């Protein structure tokens, strides 16, 4: 079966419970792992390509860790980040998407490098 990323995105700060109903293997739960290992330590070994891409990116340069976009994994997990998260720090670069042909930060900033159009 085709693999999809599950995206959970919370927009308003009202009480939200997370639900996991899907027939897909890659649901929003992070696989149960040894939680005493930090995300970066584990992913450097388990997903070295993603880790390298992140490490060499601007976020990696300033050690902006996995958990910022993806949650801590155990309590919260988002397989993909949300615009709202980006806006938390890049408050100076907010885009009025309605005035563009794009809909999300991730339309242009791709992958784990988050470079513009994966340049």
């Amino acid at each position, binding site marked *: 079966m085709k693999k999809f990323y599950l*995206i*959970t*995105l*919370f*927009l*308003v*700060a*009202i009480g939200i419970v997370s639900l996991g109903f899907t027939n897909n293997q890659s649901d929003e739960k992070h696989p149960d792992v040894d*939680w*005493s*290992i*930090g*995300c*970066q330590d584990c992913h450097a070994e388990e997903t070295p390509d993603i880790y390298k891409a992140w490490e060499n990116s*601007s976020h990696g*340069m*300033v*050690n*902006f*860790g996995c*958990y*910022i976009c993806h*949650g*801590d*994994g*155990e*309590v*919260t997990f988002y397989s993909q980040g*949300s*615009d*709202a998260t980006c*806006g*938390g*720090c*890049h*408050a*100076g*670069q907010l*885009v*009025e*998407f*309605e005035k563009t042909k794009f*809909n*999300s930060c*991730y*339309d242009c900033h791709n992958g784990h490098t988050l470079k513009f159009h994966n340049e």
Partner: protein
Amino acid sequence: MSLSRRDFLRASALAAAATTLGIGSVFNNKVLAKAGIDKEQFIQDSRGVKWHKSVCRLCGVGCGVMLGVKDGKPFGIRGDKENTINEGLLCVKGFYLNKMISAKNRLLYPMIRKNGKLTRATWDEALDLVATKFSEIRDTHGSDALAFYGSGQAETEETYVANKLFKGHIGTNNVEGNPRLCMASAVGGYISTFGADEPVGTYDDIEKCDMFLLIGSNTAEAHPVLYDRLVKRKKRNPNVKVVIIDPRKTPTNKIADLHLQVIPGYDLAIVNAIAKLLIDNGHTDEQFIKDSVNFSDGKNPITYDDYKKFLKKYTPEYAAEQCGVSPEDIKKAAKLFGEVPRVMTMWCMGVNQRVAGVFLNNLIHNLHLLTGKIGKDGCDSFSLTGQPNACGGVREGGGLSHLLPGHRVVANAQHRKEIAELWNVSPDKIQPKPGKHTVAMFDALGKDIKGMYVLCTNPAQSLPNLSKYLKGMEDAFLVVAESFHPTETTQLADVILPAAFWGEKEGVYGCTERRSQHMAQALQPMGEARWDGFILADLAKRMGYKENFEHFTSAEAIWSEYIKSTKGKDMDLTGAPYSRLKEVRGLRWPVPSVDHPGTTHRFTKGDPYFPEDKAAGRRMYFYTKPDGRAVIYARPDKGPEEKTSKEYPIALTTGRILEQWHTMTMTGQVPELVRAAPEPYVEINPDDAKDLGLSTRDKVRMVTKRGSLIVEAKVIDRPRKGTIFVPWHWPESLTNILTIDAVDPGSKEPEYKVAACRLEKV
């Protein structure tokens, strides 16, 4: 008219789906319209959020943050894009500030120890008990049997009230704060070299600088937003060089051009060697030296020639041998420093937390004075700060045992007179003799000192050689005002008072670059928590000092009284009343009037106190020194207090990681941050690990003369061979039972950065 609750939830649900699909920015018109929901109304309702201007609660960089509040609850955190320090950027810790406000371990009501157990009490019970006990101790044992231990995280207003109460009314100079443990050596360095505390330049210099010399600072993890400014500077100008002097390879090395990986505690020789090479290579600014510099051996004035003679010993080869680096690298560093036009040196705990902390601070300033690379764009000898208001509240507010507000000292009769007048007390109420410094104070606790008030800090985890001081804290009458419980310290307290947390109170923080910034109150304090300023003023009233505290009805009232003490001083804040601070993103003193823009470089043109007449054409005039000249000190290369030995062959150094802050009271409550490094660990060099047969995640026992601790090994090529690095954050693994409590003789700051230890595989 507002949408109904149901429509609002429907709209939120649809907007979430639309955004997830990437078909609407945040609110997709079409989707909402189809559902019969008015988009504009939805945006307004969903954004029923008020954003308040504030400053980050964590390190000393002073990033602007906006705290969003909806229905009286924290809604979110956003970087403040108007703030020129961070331009909207936040680090990973600041990003979760809102989660810290509503953390599960918030202390919500006062507690009193009854029959050995902390039990809930009313405010009246708690404060009456404190007032009665403190008055009793004062009357029976004298005022010096009481002490106050504050914090570089307290607001300036809070420290000011505490100072006024203890030094001016109770009458003891036993007023200290945790900046003694982190900044005191920097203060000592600035005062001895320039005659006044705090840097000459500002962050503005970063964007004009050609070379950054980082000593004992893991900027990437300890000051991430500042590090990001360095990264950007280097990215845009690849010729910019970064040279690091540190016993460890850290994430900061990602931007390093040269790393001198020194043996912990031995880097003074390198800085002297660089000074020698600057002179030998003809890279000095002789005119500047002639105009604005004196020389001293620490006791007496010496000549430039004497200084050169003193430096003879410090050849690159000698320094290299002392520090375990290559002489070539020292030459390279010196050449760079001399050749590039603009240099900023930045340092932090690796320099300050040393028995030679003040000396090393002096030696760093020497490099900038020899080359004249100070007091102009892109140049400075710039100390980084670990706490958000160590500079503002404690250094400027006079929250240490020898200080008074506005860069004054207790030993000076005129200073005492001025402050006594402001406080409306008799000048002889303020003692001329400095009180006990932090380590001495905790040493006396439970003995000469019978009662202590601790505000917003956690000494039962953060003091060096910790085991020695815990009993005193247990024995004495200990009052702790805190926003969180339990901490290592609240668990030892006799009374704990719930303090309003960041966002729940108004006040001013003063950051590393002399900038004072106002923080709005955005929320009501949780539970029964009250603002520390009011708690202290209330205690003062209950101890019989009502008259001089009853006008403290707001943070602004306290700030207005405090800034009077700065009028005409080198740190003049007269031009920074609340009315102005609320509008701007902070002001950098001296700012003597409300129409003054603040100062980017001190002691030169643009500084309102720069005396053009006395300077008589000289570029810099250090008006805080009698003859306007800064001092280059000939300081010997003093090593660490505890040298490695056969029995303890490894140098242990402590420090921080990016995701945690100090004793984890706040950051330990955020699951995302905890995930980054869930378990306490020690970094061990692969060569050392091999000798001991250790692998990552093996348990290892670290033993010093003072104690031992078992943690997980992390075998990594970061510390140099023969050195281990232990982060000190985790309360379940108290790193400070290993550290040494020897202090710098000048600054009284302990040497957290070097201890001798031995490793045992468990």
